[in-house]
């Protein structure tokens, strides 16, 4: 991915805004921000991130490539859509934030060990295996992501919930064996591989 990063940086030289417009979902709307700050004021998680959407957009225009792509801000978005609803310039802020997160991830610049990013990765890896989310393996992967000892502790803490779910027939312990998959698993795999191929070609990430 570092090659992709170097390629992208070289291609757009000083114009990070153009790079965003070309490679980030709804990136062409970044230039329409009028810096009113309503998004920053509306975000329920505002105080917990490094940069508000307003600042992210300003940084993009100011060409602060590394700072933007390495920011944890896009990963902290909970998709509440407050900012989109309120933006007077109708910027799809949530979509842009997710687009930026994806682009940073693909370039290998996204922050390491960022918890919401880790969950996103586990979720993705889980769902593409069978085309369905396996809740049991996903939960276990979550418990054990910080090591075996911590995983046992997490599982013990949650055992009451797990047993309750089993009694209510909401959790099948046999799912641990791989679980059921969607009808055309290999079709899903092919589809995703193709989509990735198209995207990589378009964005020069291959």
């Amino acid at each position, binding site marked *: 991915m570092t090659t992709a990063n170097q390629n992208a940086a070289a291609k757009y030289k000083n114009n990070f*805004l153009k790079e965003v417009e070309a490679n980030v979902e709804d990136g062409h709307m970044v*230039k*329409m921000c009028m*810096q009113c700050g309503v998004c920053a004021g509306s975000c329920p998680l505002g105080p917990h991130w490094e940069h508000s959407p307003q600042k992210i957009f*300003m940084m993009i*225009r*100011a060409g602060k490539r590394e700072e933007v792509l390495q920011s944890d801000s896009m990963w902290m978005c909970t998709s509440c859509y407050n900012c989109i609803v309120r933006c007077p*310039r109708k910027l799809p802020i949530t979509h842009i934030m997710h687009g930026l997160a994806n682009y940073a991830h693909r370039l290998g610049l996204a922050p390491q060990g960022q918890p919401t990013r880790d969950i996103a990765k586990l979720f993705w890896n889980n769902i593409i295996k069978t085309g369905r989310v396996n809740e049991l393996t996903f939960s276990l992967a979550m418990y054990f992501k910080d090591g075996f000892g911590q995983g046992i502790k997490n599982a013990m803490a949650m055992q009451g919930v797990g047993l309750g779910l089993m009694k209510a027939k909401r959790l099948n312990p046999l799912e641990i064996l791989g679980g059921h998959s969607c009808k055309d698993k290999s079709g899903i795999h092919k589809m995703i591989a193709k989509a990735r191929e198209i995207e990589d070609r378009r964005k020069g990430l291959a």
Partner: protein
Amino acid sequence: MNAPATPKHAAYICSGCGLGDQLDIAGLEKVAKTEGKMAVIKSHPFLCNAEGVQMIKDDIANDGVTHVCIAACSRRAKAEAFSFPSVAISRANLREGVIWVVAEGSDHDEVRQEMAEDYVRMGCAEVKKMIAPAGNVKETSSKKILVVGGGMSGMTAALAAADAGYEVVLVEKTGALGGFANNLHKRVPFNGPYAEAQPTGVAEMAAKVSGNGKIKVYLNSTVAETAGAPGRFAVKIAAESGSVSEELCGAIVQATGFTTYPLDQLPELGGGQANVVDQAGLEAMAKAADGGAIKRADGKEVKSVVFVQCAGQRGTGGNGSGQHLEYCSGHCCATSIKQAMYFKDQNPDIDTVVMYQDLRVPGMGEDFYRSAQQKGVIFTKAKVNAVKGGDSCQVEFKDLILNEDTGTDADLVVLATGQVPTSGVNLDDWTATVTAAESGDAAAVEKKSALQKISVLNLNYRQGPDMPQFKYGFADSHFICFPYETRRTGIYAAGPTRRPMDMFQATEDATGAALKAIQAVENVEKGRAAHPRAWDLSFPKARLEGCTQCKRCTVECPFGAIDEDEKRFPKFNEERCRRCGTCMGACPVRVISFENYSCDTVGMQIKSVNVPDEFEEKPRILILACENDAYPALDMAAVQRMTYSAFVRAIPVRCLGSVNTIWITDALNAGYDGVMMMGCKKGDDYQCHFVKGSEMAYYRMSKIDDTLKQLGLEPERVQTQEVAITDSARVVKMINDYVAQLTEMGPSPMKGFG
């Protein structure tokens, strides 16, 4: 109409609207007869209906009634019904003034009736001193409109007046029409979709003006002298060649535009250095390029450009020093957006950054701003600290969103500098210079002739050669209340000489000013005031045999209406007068009066009130209320049925400026316990309809404290208050608090000596 040989006074008392239920109408009739000495007294259950009005009309036509006192509602109500132009009319305000504001119930019957009787006494006393005004119709009055300045504003005003059927004389200093707009490549769009800059259209407009048969254009000419008044301005127009033409004009539109703030005053922003230009400089470059690549003075194509907004404006001075222009020029944000588009339209790869602190694009400018963003213009909220010119200009700025000091370089830097009005001579400066010159100061004599050279109108008014300037040198009057009016009747400022504005606003402004000019010439022809008392036929008359030549009237007139004649007596120019009465209030010997408003009409009202003695515990408080704001506020309080003390007696005045101190003396001598004056807000953000009237009143009243002390009276017995038209609740509290304060102080020691 002058006073007929035999005046006949009549009082008409209405018993409708609950007046008959709450008041003893027969008692009021008796007061009108025995004390008011009215020859005819009639009451009617519904005076303002057709029958009641017909009764009055019949009396006027058949019974020789010349003076009518109508005791009914406020003078602000039923004005159309009670309009009898041939007779003098006073209005005793029994409805809004009495029954709606005195507390209900039989406990208050006595004070309510006393209040009503006093208002009847006052109405009768007033009308006896009035004469129905005949107006001031002049045999010859010109309706021609003089427009000074041939830019966008001037041309628009000229065309608007010509289209309305009026002859126009247009004087332009340079050799061509068009003014500043001639220098522009394109203009900010006037109409939808507000996405692209538009051709200026100035050449087409100039052709329209030149080809209009009603507009006479003087190029290369200036106004050498303006004498006279609305309807009869004698204007000398001096051409560059030396020839002088004379025109008789009815009204003047001054559309002399602006100059750009000098670039060399902004060295901290690179002013005067290579490749740092102002917006006018960029227009010249864009015009030269004419759609092609914009090139710098050294011939290099511009590949990156930074626009610095508010350069030397809004007291920012580029370095926060508060120097340079204090104000925002309003147009520069949209202008920079337009200019950034010049670059982007030619080549989208050119880096164009607009550095702003607050982007102000009023009206549909927001769409224009959005369009520039679509084109890829970058807007950076930043405070520019320093610019260095050169082959690669350096811009140091603080990014206000990211809160960091940083910098960038650019091929070209454009400074958005402000507009400086071309409004002629500052009259304060002029007065000081003239005074010094008269005392023989040689430098002042020289300065006076230098000032005369920069004068726009060269008015031969006693008060100076140009219009009074408002804040920052703009020839404005009051941008909210009186947008097109100036402080010189019949002369209207339009465009950036009035306040900073863009081209579209200037054209709208010019249309408004042209309509105001038309209003002025039409009113002059009918012998009426121009505005705000546009219906008013009365005008000030002076008994010069009593005049002491103290010149207060000439100095204090807010509109420069009064000159001096050869013998140094005041010379009234009625057409310049707005009928505020500030001269009447100023006159220490009381020789100035209007036919229907004078020291006597108000003085007799004050004296006619029945003032109880000190043992009755009924104080009397006189309220002199400005009829523009304070009196309507009192009426509104009445309409909302707020109650205030029945011990006050309110008299409307045209303006607090018309209050003569004799009225205060009369009231205190008559044993009133206090006098409260209510006028409009004074100061820089004044709301006085006559600009300086309320200020003059405050000034005069500040001087009477000593007089009060000599009389053994507390200074609190005379109060001056600012009241806005919306202050109905406040005004009630103000009155009640004042009555409580006076009750605490005890009765006036002057009671019983009157």
